[in-house]
């Protein structure tokens, strides 16, 4: 297949204008020693029909789409309304560049302004940016904001955040600009006593709520501990649950970040989703990435434009707040459509159904006698959770998961494979897409090997 709309005769005419006998002449500026003198060693080209057949094989090899997931761990099987893909499939949106020429980019710019507004409405924060790569990098950027804001390098991070987010933070930290200290967990929540001990001289405390185990952290207590030393509180939130529970702003969060994939983005093997980033007004000039503002044109009409670019790499170069250039604009658009289509009640309903389904599955699994709650204290109390929860399995987790996979189920995440300390623990997630029938059938199969 080729996508070059120039005929041989036209090419000859162009060569005459350029004044060379052939295209090869144009490449003589490349030193002979590094000019490639053979064709690239790549598979033979395919026409469109063959390509489609081949990619059907790729996508459906092993039939991953027919599996019923009781698995989340940072990527969730939520329903995406048809209008979402209809909007992001418009070529005027998906084939457009970054809206640097505002006069002919009002569509993208207004859509981003609306996105920023909706992220503020959802998180309760004052300002939001145009989106980041994902939740993990948004969390890292929040750590950098805190370090620049406070002039301190130490960032305290809860071990209860997603292990891949933690690893991302530790990887960025190899550059030596931030100094992460990991605070251990106690019964699936950040250990507040340990946090109190470690927090001295910290730029920020980074927590996720719900955390990796699905638990809601005690943000009021964490805020108080951070306040004692003048540290910022950065909270990673699940945007679906924000339809139901108090946003981190209610507990005084300085920065709220998160993975936006649940808002209208399919799972797609883990990407692309998008990261959201919102903060208090006072930090706006330290925010990373693109920001759209409302202004007027020369005739006084409302108009939108990329603004405060003095923070950004293309203006400030080595003194930029971040090196980020691309955002995940198209998926931010998907999230806007998703949120506007559900509204506050719809989002609350989705969150509530997810949570109710999760409790229904959890109770049924515990009732089989093969699973136990993992984080219960002596009084029988457990941390509040959203639509993800951990149970201890009395058996071989690998065997159970393999057996369930044969039957077409993704039976949670084996936490023992991430950390030996969690051997026997399984992390389940249940979204609004799971029917009662699916949950009942799943439990039946788990219970009767």
């Amino acid at each position, binding site marked *: 297949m*080729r996508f070059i709309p*120039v005929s041989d005769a036209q090419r000859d005419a162009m060569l005459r204008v350029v004044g060379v006998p052939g295209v090869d002449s*144009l490449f003589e*500026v490349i030193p002979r020693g590094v000019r*490639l003198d053979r*064709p690239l060693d790549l598979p033979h*080209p395919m026409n469109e029909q063959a*390509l489609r057949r081949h*990619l*059907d094989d790729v*996508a459906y090899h092993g039939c*991953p*789409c027919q599996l019923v997931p009781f698995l989340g761990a*940072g990527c969730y099987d939520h329903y995406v309304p048809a209008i979402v893909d*209809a909007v992001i499939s418009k070529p005027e949106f*998906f084939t*457009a560049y970054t809206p640097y020429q505002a*006069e*002919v*980019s*009002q569509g*993208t710019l*207004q859509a981003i*302004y*609306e996105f920023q507004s909706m992220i*503020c*409405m959802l998180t309760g924060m004052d*300002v939001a940016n145009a989106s980041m790569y*994902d*939740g993990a990098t948004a969390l890292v950027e929040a750590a950098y904001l805190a370090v620049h804001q406070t002039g301190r390098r130490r960032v305290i991070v809860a071990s209860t955040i997603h292990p*891949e*987010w933690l*690893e*991302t933070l530790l*990887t*960025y930290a190899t*550059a030596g600009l931030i100094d992460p200290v990991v605070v251990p967990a106690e019964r699936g929540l950040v250990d507040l006593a340990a946090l109190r001990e470690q927090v001295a001289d910290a730029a920020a405390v980074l927590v996720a709520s719900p955390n990796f185990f699905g638990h*809601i952290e005690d943000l009021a207590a964490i805020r108080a501990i951070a306040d004692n030393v003048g540290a910022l509180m950065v909270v990673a939130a699940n945007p679906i649950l924000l339809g139901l529970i108090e*946003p981190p702003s209610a507990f005084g969060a300085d920065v709220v970040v998160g*993975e936006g994939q649940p808002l209208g983005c399919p799972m797609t*093997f*883990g990407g692309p989703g998008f990261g959201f980033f919102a903060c208090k007004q006072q930090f706006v000039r330290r925010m990373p990435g693109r920001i*759209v*503002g*409302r*202004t007027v044109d020369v005739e006084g*009409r409302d*108009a939108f434009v990329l*603004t*405060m670019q003095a923070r950004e790499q293309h203006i400030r170069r*080595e003194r*930029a707040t971040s090196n980020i*250039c*691309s955002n995940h604009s198209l998926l931010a658009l998907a999230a806007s*459509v998703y*949120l506007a*289509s559900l509204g506050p009640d719809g989002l609350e309903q989705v969150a509530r159904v997810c*949570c109710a389904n999760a*409790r229904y599955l959890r109770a049924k699994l515990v009732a089989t006698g093969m699973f136990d709650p993992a984080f219960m204290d002596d009084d029988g109390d457990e941390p509040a959770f959203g639509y993800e929860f951990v149970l201890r399995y009395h058996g071989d987790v690998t065997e159970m998961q393999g057996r369930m*996979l044969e039957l077409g189920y993704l039976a949670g995440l084996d936490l023992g494979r991430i950390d030996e300390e969690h051997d026997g623990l399984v992390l389940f997630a249940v979204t609004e897409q799971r029917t009662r029938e699916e949950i009942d059938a799943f439990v039946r199969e788990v219970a009767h090997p």
Partner: protein
Amino acid sequence: MSAERSGSAPEARGCVGGALPVRLLFELEARKSASADVEREPVVELEVPDLDSSDPLLAKARSRPAALPVLAEPEIARHYARLAARNYSVDTGFYPLGSCTMKYNPRINEQVARLKGLTDAHPYLDEYVAQGLLGFMFELQEMLAEIAGMSAVTLQPSAGAHGELTALLCIRAYHADNGNARRRVIIPDTAHGTNPATVSMAGYEATQVPSDARGGVDVDALRSVLGPDVAAIMLTNPNTLGLFDENVCEITRLVHEAGALAFCDGANMNAILGRARPGDMGFDALHLNLHKTFGTPHGGGGPGAGPVAVGRKLAPYLPAPVVHHSEDGLFRLKRPSKSIGRMRSFYGNVGVLVRAYAYIRALGADGLREVADQAVLSANYLMRRLEGAYDLPYQRTCMHEFVLSGRRQKREHGVRTLDIAKRLLDYGIHPPTVYFPLVVDEAIMIEPTETESLDALDDFAAAMLAIAEEAAIDPDLVRGAPYSTPVRRLDEARAAKHPDLAWKPPAAE
């Protein structure tokens, strides 16, 4: 403003329906709720018992609902159709943004990226079930390594700048491993802004090296800044002047002699696909912008993907996981032996990767080479068409892009490059990249790409020539442009000084 004009018919501009007011989503919502409450059915039915009122989660419940808007589907469809009509895009017309490679986005790639086997795949699927997906990712790693002339690839970085940072952190780990902490990274004065920003984020200091009279790196100047504290050079080749650096092999040799490594910014790979490979030029690492070179859509600013290809020295340091083809024939996720860790969650923007994979499989080796050939020919053609009317600072064969200067128009007519760019909008064409690279006064950086017809190129040339004449005859006309777009020049100072970044309900103001 609109009130002052009442009585005269509103002006239609730029797009169908352009005379109608474009309201914010929230204003549509406000109008509706003011008139009547629309009864809505639940978006999802509860099939199991509701949360018990004693559930600890409900102790954390919202005190009041999120202040989000809610719109009926027809309103959403129309709202975004109106916004779409106010956007320029590759499908709309010629998009000659230098160093951005705004080529056509093949539709089959959009289709395959929406296959349910891909979109419904959870990232923690068992490897056995994900063999198709891991297999294509492995093949893409291999194909990109071959195109780059490198030995290993990570698909994880989400964008070009993310790829740059990935490469520098690998370089940092390499030096640390060799007991050799280094401090500086050398960057030519023609570099993209992301390069110096990445250097800072990687904990290094940027040292700038000037260009020589031919537009390449000044090799003598490079010699003088190289030293034992230099970790790497970041070089874009072909560079942002659209010129292939003839001394590239000498440059990478000098860098290696100093114990440093050479990173190639691959933003301009479209020029040399199948013609030359950064690995063969002595580079140790290269990032590729799949949304430029390999035809994946820009999406109004993302998502893109910025895989990094590296040579043998850096392969052990790549972020985890990479896809490995095991002896038993299975594809598995593996951690490179000295991996720096990871740069984001999961494996990368797989939905973007699959489009690039489909693109390379559609074109094959010959097709990719034809891409570079036509991209370079089209750029040289436009350069010849425009060099009389505008200054051309570097009189050389260009690669896939070239840089004009508007300094003559500025000096003689007081018309700046920004004015020329804005006037192009009135001709229905998106302007080129302007005021970059910084080494050219009043720079106009033009990249036509291979997917433009000769008619499109000629229309652009005609518009540029006409604007050069307008600048001489009626400079005010050009200075006031654009006139025909949905909005005209914006008050950017006001936007920055009094930031209005989120809508607030009128009552709250």
